[in-house]
């Protein structure tokens, strides 16, 4: 019996909790992609860099707070610095919209042109971020490392396996719940939020109803920048901040948005968890879990890992491919082809 419990704790500790935290980060990222898709109807390739940019300013503000001795005690100071990062990302992205995308809106350009423009924007952000903060790893996590340490858990339960619950994981989950609840309240209950849904649903009719497109687009960008900064900061807190990783995370984020049904916010969240949990569970080494569950002599020699972690992108890509082949509109009904 304790063996089974130990195996479960092991799974929770190394697979479920990290998977959920990662899923939250992907979900927040995918929400930003899906919002822009719903309103402006293109896949924003600069989204990863937007995340990195907001995170960068959060880090700079965190350093400033830290050097002035301001902190939140056990909670990372970065949360206090988050509004600065969000503000910076919002200003950047609104500036970008004014200088780049607005022109193509007036021209009524095809989505593919927006997409290429977003590649240019990505290029620019990429250089800008490396110019300001450099290409290296930045660790900005402070406060206490754990909510529950492995030792405390072992003492509490008397099991061999400890379940550590990292502060950054707890923060990720709580912040994501707050953000998602706030976003859905906004989209479903407020007049402005409903007008955004209406615009996404049927642009021409929204215009006939007197909905101001410029305002809708502006709010979509603000929401996207906010979500991107939060997602990027949570990801950076949990792992570490390295500009390059934000380019790589673009693929799982796109996969999450499409798998869920692009343009559909609930789908983006669902897709985030589908991608994150499959990625973690396919690259997880099950050796010790199996060792607990089978008689000693059966214990496997290898790691019992389906795929090496180097191939985690292959997981999101494979799921993406399967969804595109089987159900191109995504799990939840997204905007159709």
């Amino acid at each position, binding site marked *: 019996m304790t063996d089974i419990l130990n195996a479960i704790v092991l799974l929770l500790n190394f697979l479920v909790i990290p998977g959920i935290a990662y899923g939250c980060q992907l979900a927040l990222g995918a929400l930003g992609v899906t919002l822009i898709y719903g309103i402006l109807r*293109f*896949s924003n*390739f600069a989204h990863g860099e937007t995340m990195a940019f907001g995170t960068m300013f959060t880090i700079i503000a965190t350093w400033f707070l830290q050097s002035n001795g301001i902190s939140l005690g056990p909670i990372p100071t970065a949360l206090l610095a988050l509004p600065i990062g969000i503000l910076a990302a919002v200003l950047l992205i609104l500036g970008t919209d004014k200088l*780049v995308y607005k*022109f193509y809106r007036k021209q009524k350009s*095809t*989505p*593919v*042109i927006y*997409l*290429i*423009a977003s*590649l*240019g*924007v*990505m*290029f*620019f*952000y*990429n*250089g*800008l971020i*490396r*110019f*300001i903060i*450099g*290409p290296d790893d930045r660790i900005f996590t402070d406060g206490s490392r754990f909510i529950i340490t492995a030792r405390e858990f072992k003492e509490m339960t008397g099991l061999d396996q400890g379940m550590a619950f990292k502060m950054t994981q707890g923060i990720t989950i709580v912040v994501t719940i707050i953000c998602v609840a706030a976003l859905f309240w906004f989209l479903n209950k407020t007049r402005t939020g409903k007008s955004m849904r209406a615009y996404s649903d049927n642009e021409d009719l929204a215009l006939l109803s007197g909905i101001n497109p410029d305002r809708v687009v502006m709010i979509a960008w603000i929401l996207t920048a906010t979500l991107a900064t939060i997602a990027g900061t949570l990801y950076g807190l949990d792992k570490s901040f390295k500009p390059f990783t934000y*380019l*790589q995370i*673009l*693929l799982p984020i*796109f*996969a999450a948005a*499409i798998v869920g049904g692009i343009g559909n916010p609930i789908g983006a969240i669902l897709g985030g968890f589908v991608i994150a949990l499959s990625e973690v569970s396919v690259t997880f080494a099950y050796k010790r879990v199996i060792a607990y569950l089978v008689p000693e002599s059966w214990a496997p020699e*290898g790691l019992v890992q*389906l795929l*090496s972690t*180097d*191939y985690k*992108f*292959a997981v*999101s*890509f494979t799921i*993406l*491919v399967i969804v*595109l*082949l089987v159900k*191109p509109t995504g799990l939840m009904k997204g905007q159709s*082809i």
Partner: protein
Amino acid sequence: MTFNLRNISMFAIMAVMFILVGVFNSWSTSLFILNFCLISAVMSLGVNIQWGYAGLLNVGIMGFVALGGVAATLVSIPPVQGAIAAGGSGILFSAFLTAIAIAAIYFAYKKLSGGTRKLTITAISIVSFFVIRYYFDPAVDAIESFDSAGTGNLGGLNMPILFGWLLGGLLAAGAAWLVGKISLGLRSDYLAIATLGISEIIIAVLKNEDWLTRGVKNVNGLPRPFSVPYEVDIQQSAYWIDMAERWGVSVVELSSLVVKFSYAALFAIVLLIILYLSEKALASPWGRMMRAIRDNETAAEAMGKNVTGRHLQVFILGSAVVGIAGAMLTTLDGLFTPTAYQPLRYTFLIWVMVIVGGSGNNWGAVLGGFVVGFFWIQAEPIGLWAMDVITSGMAEDSDLRSHLLKSAAHMRLMMMGVILLLVLRFTPKGLIPEK
């Protein structure tokens, strides 16, 4: 291209730039940039076939470049007999099993339907995954442990590297077929995202499958094409020693110039062949139809054109050209380094070339490859120099100054982004517009 004064003078200016670099800097640098530009121009042509002819967005150019590179490597290096003896049969058998599994899945897909089909395909996939791994893993271990410091891989075919160029094109075409089959016919963004995905995966495979590519340990000393001599031979040849004396340069310098020039000649031939074929294709009924489809997909579909099929064709062709260019690049480097493949350098830079040059126009794509390639290489010294001038007023040990100088390299990315955006907005037709 219309051979008007404007277009010809743009190429002429480009030529003058190379001469200026040769005269004021060094001819070695000039030829180095020229080789880089020639390869870039081929890549740019390939992307132009996809984007310019058909409006297809390939955001995974890097992956196709890398496939070309690995093809050149695997064709040219000698086989490692010991490793083949140790694990060759295991790899072959796994490949055989994979083929069976794919055939079974295909069969199930064709013959069954509904829930049974999904279930069967899932079952076949899972079972075959474990069975293949059962034979594959030990073989890989055996290969990788054989002389892991020296080789640790199966080696290659020991054939002339030029065959690798062809194989590179074929490999890239195969990958393009796979991606295109899945994502063409869906929304245009999906192709972009799928290509982004496949290129990340290709790079991951090349980095991690040591038994095939030695992974991050790199493969050095690739043989050169038959037409490119080795420096050592030149330095010992009486003819070239005599030449060097007559021109008043050291024979070492001359040998490097001759090698670079030989490469340039070879690349130029490939570029001209592909350019010629592209121009022919574009002017043919096939090319006209492609453009008709691009300009109005709905109308073309209504006229009974198989739009998705045509798109697949053009996507494969373009990717093959990019694959050939990738093989050329690895040949020029003489070594294969999977870590060198960066998306910004191999995907987005090529995009800037196509857009700047003039999408839809082959000559434009070539010119774009030259112009952007030239400035990409020159931007580093220029940026450093500019930063030096800007910061010259600051104290020698100022933190800001050292930060700015260190960051100058990243200015290139920003500049490329700005150039792309400016061209896209103000002269969307590029330097040489489509006819």
